[in-house]
């Protein structure tokens, strides 16, 4: 590891004034410390933002918005009663990520900024356009079973690893940012950038900019939401494929739907075509299967990751049918044609905070 200096901002309102050209922020440290150990990140200076006053979760009753400070630990956010009740997809996505020990350290901002888990990205001996621009991509012809099939480019096919960001995308959250050029905010959909020609750039943040908070609208849709994550083992692994889904059903008809995918795309991925396939029709098994098909639109599998296309189909269909089978105010009438089936589980009840049984974990056929 390269030598560096360590500071905690003296002026909490403007931590970027402490940032030199080769400095980085550190929050929980669970991603950055790891990447520094393997030499992928080599800052000359670490600015510890961990104690800035950005760790509150506030409900704005006037706009029905949840404002989550960038430093809120993933464990606290998952356990928050308002999140569990009104944004179950968020709680489930968080609890499906990492381990309890890591969730206690990991922050909201750090989770959105975490780097890919592509093995070549961490391996300094291998070419990787994301780590060293224009050096090549070892995954294209190499080991890419776990790599992306959506949003890829000829320069990088690495997946975005976050579960949290997938849930936030389905909830149409906004990211609040502050920095040397003043505050700004943008939809999370715009925040993460596809690799294109510049896979080394993963978000719109410029040097010195800081995520201060994320704002999540608390809608009827958000209250009737679910996260399904399929991994290579039942717990504590990154997603092979995941889906954040939300449905609003009235009088037997889907009025609104949100579907976002994780583990299969280079950014958290909104599956608009899958949403469109549902709206105006009944929430039936057939419709959910069609949505699963539509979610694969644009998928470009490589030599060894074609299974991800089939996974998308099944994970989307199953997430939707599981959600449709849960009883919440947003679903007042059962499906009119073939009834959708799934495992009913009322979101946000009966699970002990932080230790609940494997939420959004995988059982049965997808193991």
């Amino acid at each position, binding site marked *: *590891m390269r030598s560096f200096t*360590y500071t905690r901002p003296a002026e909490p309102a403007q931590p970027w004034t402490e940032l030199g050209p080769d400095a980085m922020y550190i929050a929980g440290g*669970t991603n950055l*410390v790891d990447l520094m150990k393997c030499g992928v990140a080599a800052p000359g200076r670490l600015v510890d933002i961990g104690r800035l006053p950005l760790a509150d979760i506030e409900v704005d009753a006037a706009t029905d918005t949840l404002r989550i400070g960038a430093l809120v630990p993933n464990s606290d956010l998952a356990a928050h009663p308002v999140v569990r009740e009104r944004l179950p997809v968020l709680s489930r996505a968080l609890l499906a990520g990492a381990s*309890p*020990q890591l969730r206690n350290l990991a922050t909201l901002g750090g989770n959105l900024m975490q780097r890919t888990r592509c093995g070549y990205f961490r391996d300094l001996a291998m070419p990787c356009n994301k780590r060293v621009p224009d050096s090549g991509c070892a995954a294209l012809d190499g080991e890419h079973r776990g790599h992306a099939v959506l949003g890829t480019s000829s320069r990088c096919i690495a997946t975005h690893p976050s579960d949290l960001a997938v849930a936030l995308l389905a909830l149409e959250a906004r990211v609040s940012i502050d920095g040397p050029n003043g505050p700004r905010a943008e939809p999370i959909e715009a925040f993460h950038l596809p690799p294109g020609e510049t896979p080394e750039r993963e978000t719109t943040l410029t040097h010195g900019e800081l995520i201060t908070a994320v704002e999540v609208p608390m809608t009827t849709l958000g209250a009737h939401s679910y996260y399904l994550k399929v991994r290579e083992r039942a717990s*504590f692994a990154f997603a092979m494929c995941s889906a954040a889904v939300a449905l609003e059903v009235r009088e037997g008809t889907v009025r609104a739907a949100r579907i976002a995918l994780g583990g299969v795309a280079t950014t958290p991925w909104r599956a608009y075509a899958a949403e469109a396939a549902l709206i105006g029709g009944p929430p039936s098994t057939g419709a959910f299967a069609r949505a699963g098909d539509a979610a694969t639109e644009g998928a470009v599998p490589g030599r060894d990751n074609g299974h991800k296309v089939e996974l998308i189909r099944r994970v989307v269909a199953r997430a939707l049918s599981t959600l449709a089978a849960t009883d919440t105010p947003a679903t007042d009438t059962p499906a009119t044609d073939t009834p959708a089936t799934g495992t009913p589980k009322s979101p946000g009840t009966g699970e*002990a905070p932080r230790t609940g049984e494997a939420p959004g974990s995988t059982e049965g056929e997808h193991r």
Partner: protein
Amino acid sequence: MKVTFTVNGRPTEADDVWEGESLLYVLRERVGLPGSKNACEQGECGSCTVYLDGDPVCSCLVAAGQVQDREVGTVEGLAQGDTLDPVQQAFVDAGAVQCGFCTPGLLVQTHDLLNRAHHPSDAEIREALSGNLCRCTGYEKIMDAVRLAAARKADARDAAPTGLEG
């Protein structure tokens, strides 16, 4: 740099700490507490689990500077003098220790679980311990130990005068 923090209730100062050291390294090499184990160094195995301000964390991913003025609790702090914590005693009695490398992390993580959940289901135990890998036991004896510790703690609570036990 110098790092000042509290370890197992004792104010502690570590001098000449290199910025790149982890909390795990500081504990083992500078503070003389080698109970927390160093196995994967990347957050995957949980053998380095310690309490940080009351919450269990992977100390291998905490940079030394991050613990300034904070409270750390390690496996060495679980026993009261010569009396093992009920969690430790249960691991001994259930035969949940083979090579023992994973044990300190499992003890701290189980200690935290049983502080928050008095009657955890098997699924809850598995999920709470999902970040602690063991390559020897196959986990069955570990599950036995956690159930045993939970039962003994429940008995102790029942035996205690009401209002005194949380």
